[in-house]
């Protein structure tokens, strides 16, 4: 069928992970819609397709709530890039990445790349308060009045005063530990300086840089995948017919 549906097939998968309320949906929303709005806690995962040049990049925005952990590995299966997001004003959100989210990445590709992203930088860093993109600015003023997402426990205690709790160095240290967890050589992997970001979905600070850096980095993975499955559409269908429908499905992501 349909050329259209083949066209839309995602070439590569990027997943946003992180504790609740760190701003995963807001980051993505800032990037795709160019604005910041009060979002509602994500349910399950949301799937987006992003055209990046000739490629289709699928982005999974996942729920940070523990409740949805069961699906975490499904969202991560075959991922080419994983964005581990924390909140710079909340130390616990960084700790959670290591405690809860790192294990979810086991199903990602072997050559998956990892980015550690500290969001809400505008709360602590004056430079991040300046908007980076010009077009979304006007809306910001009106829409971003409050960040009053439901706050719990530690967040409610800390984020009101919002001192910076996580430094860039902490994040880079975490990146090192992630590589070790994955059994990757630090030398042959992407350097921490390049893969640790501080962003603000509210002002747009560093958001485009984050996504675009990642997209550029996953390109090789797309090309390799294309080569592997040169006759890909037919392969998929044959596999499905063979009855192993589940496997076939997972291979298409």
């Amino acid at each position, binding site marked *: 069928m349909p050329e259209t549906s083949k066209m*839309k097939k995602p070439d590569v998968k990027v997943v946003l992970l992180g504790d609740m309320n760190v701003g995963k949906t807001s980051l993505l929303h800032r990037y795709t819609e160019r604005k910041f709005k009060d979002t*509602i806690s994500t349910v*399950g995962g949301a*799937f987006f397709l992003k055209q990046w040049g000739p490629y289709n990049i699928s982005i999974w925005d996942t729920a940070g709530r523990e*409740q949805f952990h069961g699906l975490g590995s*499904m969202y991560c299966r075959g991922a080419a890039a994983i964005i581990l997001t924390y909140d710079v004003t909340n130390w616990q959100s960084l700790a959670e990445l290591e405690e809860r989210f790192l294990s979810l990445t086991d199903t990602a590709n072997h050559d998956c790349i990892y980015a550690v992203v500290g969001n809400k930088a505008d709360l602590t860093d004056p430079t991040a308060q300046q908007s980076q993109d010009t077009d979304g600015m006007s809306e910001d003023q009106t829409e971003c009045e409050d960040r009053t997402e*439901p706050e719990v426990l530690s967040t409610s205690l800390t984020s009101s005063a919002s001192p910076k709790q996580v430094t860039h160095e902490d994040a880079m240290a975490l990146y090192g530990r992630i590589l070790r967890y994955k059994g990757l050589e630090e030398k042959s992997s992407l350097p921490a300086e390049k893969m640790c970001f501080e962003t603000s979905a509210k002002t747009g600070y560093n958001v485009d840089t984050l996504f675009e850096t990642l997209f550029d980095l996953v390109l090789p993975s797309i090309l390799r995948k294309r080569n592997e499955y040169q006759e890909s559409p037919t392969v998929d269908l044959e596999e499905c017919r063979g009855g192993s429908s589940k496997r076939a*499905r997972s291979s298409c992501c």
Partner: protein
Amino acid sequence: MERDNHQEGEAQGVKICDPPSERKPPDTLATSLSLLGNHMFPDPVERNNSTTDKEEPADLHLSDVTAQEQSLDAEPPSNQVKKLETEEAENSECQSNESAETTDRGAEDAADRVTEDAAAVDNDQSDSGEFVVTMLAKAKLEEQGIGVKGRSSPLLEAGTQESPAFMSHRDEDVTADSWRQHRKHVFVLSEAGKPIYSRYGSEEALSSTMGVMMALVSFVQSGDNIIRSVYSEQHTVVFLQKGPLVLVCVSSSRQSEQQLRGELLYVYYQIISMLTQASISRIFEHKKNYDLRRLLAGSEKILDGLLNLVDSDPSFLLAAIHCLPLASSLRDSLSQILQKAITPNLVFSILIAKNQLLTIVQEKTVIEDTRLEPADVHLLLNLIGASSAFQAGEIWTPICLPLFNPDCYFYAYISYLDPPECTVCLLLLSTDKEAFYAVAECKRKIEEAMVAQNSLSLIAKAQSYSVSQVGVSDLRHFMYKPFDVPDNYRQLSQFTSPEMEAPYSSEEEKMRLLDLYRYMHSRIHSTSRPLKLIYHVAERETLLAWVTSKFELYTCFSPLVTKACAITAITKLLRWIKKEEDRLFIRYPPKYSTTPNPSKSSRGGKSDQQDSTDNGFLSLL
């Protein structure tokens, strides 16, 4: 509700106030709804008082009905009904028979129900025991400053006036007067007394209040009893205990206890839909003082949305689905589109527009097994409505349909078909956690077929209807729930209702009309004295509610209508509905079979594709 009026009050209570749990053995709490009222006011004088209290809401002018209420079952209150009775034979078993018996039967029922509550205790004992405990509970409430009647009560003493309920109240000051004046509070706490949810204000700020609630519950429990409700002049406090969760509603809405309990049950089900019953029990077995907010954090808005819907949408009251009126040819073509876009393990395909059902297609084996309960559909609709995040991208999320199976998840694919307007929403439910890409492919087939048939613009034109189309003057509004839809075996309960138009265009007036309907509903479904027919002259309108074995009907007329007029109008209305049936209801819910048949799932969705195949068995759950 096709139920016999002569049923035991108990059974009726369960069915009506607790519609979703029909399939399950009734919960002890839900079983014995009206009992507390009787026991709280054991002596006739007091009881009369209480009745009077209840009958005096400012906005429910009860006229002659009140008088009957006060005579308390002594007289068959059927004078206004009689004429109608003769009009319709079905109607013959009207309230008079019931009410005559009620007094005696009430006592028997009470005993029955108590037996169920505290099986170990002998009837009389537990009967009086319960009374004492309730009184104690009351006293305790007062003592704790949550006073039931006391003027000093911070929680309960409040005006009845409702506040705008359509915004988030999480940051509200719980010590403020405005907080106390909310029309309906809902609290959820764990058995350990840990706050889980409060409709208004943060749960944390309310932890001591919730502690008192839990103290009440456990105090009554320690006497092998169950606390069900507390009545005061202004408020009704209803308790519902479900597994490790305790739900409490404090309402000044004048709704019946059964209705309030039904609403609490919806809240419980919504929680279950996110976590499953099994996992909640497991968590609390493991750790009694677990803070469930860890798992529910972020879901408050879904519960808020549910409670707002419950207040503003009669579907919950009627336990039926409201579907968007649609030419049957269009509905059929939509159904066919859904029927053709299938993949293994797909069990429900649901198309929604403007928060109303367009069509629903179910897996064959599933319908034979169990039907989709209206309450489950309500929860799904609320989930979609409450989450604006759904408006972008495609969602894949686990969701439990508590009445279908409270312990397992379905995987829901949710996507809007008309971004950025986001009015037409597709919901596909699969039992396969990994099926996202296959199901997303179904959506693409559906999208294509809908483009080919120009369905979206046709759907956009569809709208609810005006009561003027019925062509009956004096008729302002109605709600009609048929029981005799063709193919009613496993049919989804539905109802139809026109737009609320002037004089019910403002939010306040809408709510006032709904309150009147709720009142009529509570009278019709009263556990102690159910009615078949009620003609109620209110201050600004006249209402007539009528339940037969074939339908349940609530009508609202202009205040000056005569009974004869109203009856003619209803005859005309019923005729009109009959004529429009195909448009107003989903008459023949289509089915498909998603027998694993790979060629179908992977190959294109051209419209020439065959219909579903019949062989095989669906591996459900």
